[in-house]
């Protein structure tokens, strides 16, 4: 579970990247976070993950306040950033070992976890090569594997579908559904409204730092004039704002 209470964040005290945000992402749900470019999606995610410190407000992950107990909170989630170009000089297997040691993954389950993730994302033959030799999609996959290796209770994914081929995107969606069925939480941002429409239990729309809507798709349809598709509702909300 993730709670964001009255969180504010501005850069240089001029531009408010996140403006009094309030969100509650419940256990066992896939939560989509939508918004146009520069809306504040990545900033919100960086606040959730401890990369940025809010100017005010409180963020908790599974009840742990990230500003008061940062290490404990960081163990609760697995994070996939929007830029997968990380540690390019390491081999895939070295990156995964790094993440396994940092997150304290049990030695007895490491091999099994890696094999399972590698098979699902078709990365079996790439692990012994340097990340520098990977395509963009493969880099996305290795970062995803690193984030999920410790079987986190919360997944925080920033535009995870970018660069993934249809098979891997499908596999990821299946994994997300599997996770939430076992009571875990998935929070992800995306530009692809069709994906959000298909798999999200609830979603939020942010624009210019403000949360414009938070709820289910049906709730959104009741509120909007144009409710034939998420795309039309999204555009209506964003343009109104």
């Amino acid at each position, binding site marked *: 579970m993730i709670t964001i209470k009255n969180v504010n964040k501005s850069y240089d005290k001029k531009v408010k990247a996140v403006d009094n945000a309030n969100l509650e992402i419940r256990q066992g749900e896939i939560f989509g976070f939508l918004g146009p470019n520069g809306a504040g999606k990545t900033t919100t995610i*960086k606040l959730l*993950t*401890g*990369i*940025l*410190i809010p100017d005010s407000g409180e963020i908790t992950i599974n009840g742990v306040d990230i500003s008061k107990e940062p*290490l*404990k909170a*960081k*163990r609760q989630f697995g*994070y996939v*950033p929007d*830029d997968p*170009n*990380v*540690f390019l*000089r*390491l081999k895939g*297997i*070295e990156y*995964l*070992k*790094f*993440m*396994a*040691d*940092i*997150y*304290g993954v049990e*030695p007895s389950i*490491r*091999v099994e976890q*890696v*094999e399972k993730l590698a098979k699902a994302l078709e990365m*079996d*033959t*790439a*692990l*012994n*090569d*340097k990340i*520098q*030799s*990977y395509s963009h999609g493969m880099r996305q996959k290795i970062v995803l594997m690193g984030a999920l290796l410790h079987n986190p209770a919360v997944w925080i994914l920033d535009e995870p579908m970018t660069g993934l081929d249809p098979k891997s995107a499908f596999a990821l969606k299946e994994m997300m559904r599997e996770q939430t069925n076992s009571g875990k939480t998935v929070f992800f941002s995306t530009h692809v409204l069709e994906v959000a429409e298909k798999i999200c239990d609830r979603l939020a729309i942010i624009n210019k730092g403000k949360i414009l809507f938070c709820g289910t798709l049906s709730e959104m349809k009741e509120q909007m004039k144009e409710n034939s598709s998420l795309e039309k509702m999204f555009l209506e909300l964003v343009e109104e704002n």
Partner: protein
Amino acid sequence: MSSIKRMLLLAKTITRTTDFGISFGRKKKDLNKKGTNIVGIIILGLVFLYFAGIILFISVKFFDFLKLFGMQSAMLGYSASLFSFIIFFFGIFYIISVFYFTSDIEHLLSLPFNAWEIIGGKFLSVIIYEYITTSLVLIPFFVYGFLNGEGILFYLYSIVIMLLLPIIPLALTAVIIMPIMRFVKFARNKDLFNMISGVLVMAIALSFNFYFQSMFTNETDLGNVVNAGGEKLVQITSAIFPGTVFAGQSLASASNINGLIYIVLLFLACVIAFSLVLLLANFLYLKAATAVSSSNASHKKLNKMNLAKNFVSTPSFFTYMKKDILILIRTPIFFMNNVLLNFIWPIVIFIAMYRITQSQEQGNIQLLIKSINFSDFDSLGKIFFIIFAVSIFIGGMNGITSSALSREGNCFNIMKFIPMSYFKQIIAKISVGFMFSFICIIIGLGVVCYFTQPPIWIIVLSIIICIPALIFTNLCGIIFELFWPKLHWDNEQKAVKQNLNVVLGMFLPIGLAIPIVIFGFLVPMNFYLSYFLLLAVGCILDVIVIVILKTIVPMRMRNIVY
């Protein structure tokens, strides 16, 4: 548009967009950075003038020496041969970089160019940049022309030769490189090439330094050796680069028709060489150029046993250190600027000490080394001050800790979301810097001990006294990074070479080391007081800086944003 015109257009475009490592002169997008361009150009100009001055001095001396034997015209051939050889050597790196390791090849292949037009354009662009080096050949030519009273034709021929001289050596380089790049797989690995070429250049520079220093004791010896070496060089380069003979002969015969004939012959030789390059390019270039990569993938599936071997649990601190070490070693720029330096210093010390012990002129220093009395405890105390100061200096020289955060670049955010305390991560980074500095000190001490033969207990005490000094410099290095990290870069050079923290990390130790040595020599102290004072001061300073770091690290890390 004819093929020649297309080739010239390509040469012009490539010359304007490739910087060959000289980026100062280029226009930057940020108008505020104009000041930097002018400063960069001035620095480059001063370096050029410095080398020009050295060549001018040697040319004048060499002319005077050869004139004693009536052989001054030999200077022309020697100069042409030497520059041909230099162009050939540096051409290896230029040719490989421009032909194969620039990112424009895939774009060029989608345009309507033949392979030989691309190679021709790239070849011409390399020649244009080689003119920066070849222009210096005019100096010995003009010195000869002035001192020998040559006419205007001589100077005109010199300029023509300067323009034609790089073609044959570069053509030979290209003819050698193209089959290698086509058929030898690992040669196409950019990272491996950058690492090997960096090591090779340093090895050659050190070897030249060692060779020339051990050869020359006075001017006459210098003249004799250069003359003998020059003759041999002409013989070798005439065989390898036929055109160099024509160059020397043309200038020597500038006053008659033979001068013109030799210029024409040189021109024809260049045309043949260039045509050979274009012909070979048609068969060998494209396939190799498109197969270049920074990292070759093996696509090897790891079996369960290999996976298990790779996943043995390691404490997060050492895993973090290992990650930093692997990236340092595998990134060519970091390897050459931060890691290799630790092994260069001991070699430099070896060369210096070898020269001292072998040279007759260094008799006083030899006596000094031999006279070190390891039983004289008062003098011994002073030596430990020197060792302590040198350790402080060495600790900052490799720039590993003072670029520890900058080298993260876009990976910096990983430091912020992983469940490892900021302080622990910083200490891991400092440990990596310390480790490499310590290796450098141990090898350096080994070299010094080889020449001075101290007793074992002195060696052990020396190692112990180095440790707090190395720790101190590395701790200070990270403080600069915590306040002014350079995280935004598109080229690894900017993280380590164009980073003020690295400069501060080098100069602060120098600023500390000098007063320490002065104090040790001026203040009379017995050995025990000297040694334990140094040890205590070193340890206390380390503890103070660690306490400071424990306070500032969490605060600074929270505020640093990528």
